[in-house]
């Protein structure tokens, strides 16, 4: 129950915050005025969709600024990004229906008036609303339906703030029985100002406050043809983190696009320097071939709660490919563990088994830490049955998964069908790796 609350508290808070204006709206006028015929009911639905959509938009703008605080609040940044996506889609869908419900009353007058209502130019406030919605449609279609480079998408998505400002002008200048209510107006304005201010802070002031860790690249080593390990040294302050956490890192240099990307930390938290492992998968990660010793880097974080709920029970760690990084970090920090820990390092073949030597060295020192490699080209894909056989049963075991999403989902459903409690299965869901 406590866990459920902790996991869902942010969503609950968002739902409550977005329902407050709707509740207020219900008490503004008697229902007999709101829903006395078809047209009035449609208009009322239009008002509700507008109100809800705009409140959710404002709340989403606030949480779109990732921070260590939100990371804790949402129990991990992946929950936070999921919430952002979910809220954004919901808000956008509601705002799309807002004019559709409102136009119905004009259809009953004439189709010409209905068409005029949907076109910009009739009055200032409506035009602002239309411009805002059009901008949203363009920007979110890019997000949903076009595969563009991450840095271009990231840049384009920032213009959602412009759409938000247009929408805000729309609600400030539109005349309706909603906009005349000082509570509703102040409520939406309050969250809008916080959202805009936090966006402004993130875009401009953050640099002034020098929140990021300034670092310099100390070492770059190719682990195999596809994976490199980058070691950076923090220049001013030590970055304190717990194993399993990840950081956003930005490299400043030629041939590398300058937006920050998330990577799990692979070094131990006892080392001063931070190490990350990068597999060349996409546009950005491929440019990291150009990282050189001496290059400047900036780190934001750390984020994540992958190993937050360890209970000193038997543990099974399942790493798929480069998903080994958080386990590597934790393995390096192990000291006289009392319970068995089984690390399954799942790869296509032995050429991918980078840093296996390091892990085996640790298992020699730590008698209860077992490293098991699993090459899918030699055997089949790893299964929950195979894992149970190799680890003497999976009852009352904590399971940790990090790897490609199909790998994690597939094993999760197998474990659940074998009777493992959902709460005993932990993910590193941040799949930008």
């Amino acid at each position, binding site marked *: 129950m406590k866990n459920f609350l902790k996991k869902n508290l942010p969503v609950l808070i968002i739902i409550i915050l977005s329902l407050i204006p709707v509740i207020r709206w219900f008490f503004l006028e008697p229902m007999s005025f709101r829903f006395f015929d078809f047209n009035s009911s449609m208009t009322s639905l239009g008002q509700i969709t507008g109100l809800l959509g705009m409140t959710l938009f404002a709340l989403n703008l606030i949480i779109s600024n990732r921070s260590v605080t939100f990371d804790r609040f949402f129990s991990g940044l992946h929950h936070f990004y999921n919430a952002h996506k979910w809220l954004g889609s919901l808000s956008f869908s509601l705002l799309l*229906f807002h004019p559709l419900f409102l136009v119905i009353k004009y259809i009953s007058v004439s*189709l010409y008036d209905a068409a005029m209502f949907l076109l910009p130019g009739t009055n200032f406030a409506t035009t602002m609303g239309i411009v805002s919605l059009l901008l949203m449609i363009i920007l979110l279609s890019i997000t949903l339906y076009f595969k563009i480079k991450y840095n271009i998408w990231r840049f384009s998505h920032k213009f959602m703030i412009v759409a938000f400002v247009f929408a805000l002008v729309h609600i400030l200048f539109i005349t309706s029985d909603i906009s005349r209510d000082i509570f509703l107006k102040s409520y939406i304005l309050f969250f809008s100002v916080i959202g805009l201010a936090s966006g402004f802070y993130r875009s401009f002031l953050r640099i002034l406050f020098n929140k990021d860790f300034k670092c310099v690249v100390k070492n770059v080593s190719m682990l195999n043809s596809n994976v490199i390990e980058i070691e950076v040294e923090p220049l001013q302050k030590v970055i304190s983190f717990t194993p399993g956490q990840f950081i956003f890192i930005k490299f400043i240099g030629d041939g590398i696009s300058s937006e920050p990307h998330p990577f799990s930390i692979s070094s131990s938290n006892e080392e001063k320097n931070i190490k990350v492992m990068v597999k060349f998968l996409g546009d950005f990660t491929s440019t990291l071939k150009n990282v050189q010793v001496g290059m400047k880097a900036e780190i934001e974080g750390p984020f994540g709660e992958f190993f937050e709920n360890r209970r000193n029970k038997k543990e099974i760690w399942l790493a798929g490919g480069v998903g080994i990084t958080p386990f590597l970090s934790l393995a390096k920090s192990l000291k006289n563990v009392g319970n068995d820990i089984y690390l399954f390092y799942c790869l296509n073949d032995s050429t991918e088994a980078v840093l296996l030597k390091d892990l085996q060295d640790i298992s020699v020192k730590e008698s209860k830490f077992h490293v098991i490699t699993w090459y899918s080209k030699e055997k089949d894909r790893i299964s929950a049955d195979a894992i149970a056989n190799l680890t003497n049963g999976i009852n009352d075991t904590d399971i940790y998964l990090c790897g490609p999403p199909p790998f994690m989902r597939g094993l999760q459903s197998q474990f659940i069908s074998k009777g493992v409690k959902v709460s005993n299965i932990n993910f590193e869901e941040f799949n930008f790796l």
Partner: protein
Amino acid sequence: MKKITSISLFIFFCVTTAILTAGLVFYQNKNNSKPNGSSVVATGTNLPSGTILNIAEVSKHNTNSDCWIVVNNKVYNISDYASSHPGGARNILNSCGKESTQAFNTKGGTGSPHSPSANSMLVKFYVGDLNQVVGSNLPQQTTQTNQNNSSVVSTGTTKSSASSSSSSSTTSLDLAEVSKHNTNADCWIIVNSKVYNISNYASSHPGGSRNILNNCGKEATQAFNTKGGTGSSHSPSANAMLANFYVGDFNQTINSAVQQNIQKVQSNPIPAANQEFDD
């Protein structure tokens, strides 16, 4: 979630494209058959032959589902529209069955006039001119007697509709008569020697209905000028709104049937803007 967004986007594009296309076609048709401003457009209204569109007739249509208003000496049937009113249904429904020029021109006393598109929308609900004889099978007789009005307005009171049936009765608007209208549902007040029927307004009174209802059937000049003794006077828009509820001068004698056919719009000369509604 992406599915929901995609479905929403799909619906949005289908509906907007359909409306914009249909609107364009409708626009061309509209240009081909421009309605004649002086014709009687009984908007979904079947009137018996020879109905006179006087204030008594209008005041019968004072419910949410059957709502007529008078704006600039023209009668409009806004029954189907009221629910869609951007300014809220309540604000428009308060005017049902009444002379509403002032309310229309000031958006119910807030001061700003309606937009041109609102004006052009209003014309769609045109029933006929005030005091015009209309009817589904009668030739139109537009009476242009608006310029020589006397000073009687009755604001959709039960009195006026009752008296319209007994065409020769006369009533003196003395204190005895006013004091009969002393209930919440039937509330007349006297302000500056003028009698007002505020029955339909009291519930909307920004200062609370109780304060206004205390004065029903009474001389209320003092109360009106001091906002019930608090000292501050009512705003100009409140004054303008009061004019909508004017029944007659104090001690004036109303000959209902004759005089109710004559309508004077409160201190609003018949505007040239009439033309605007006719296009």
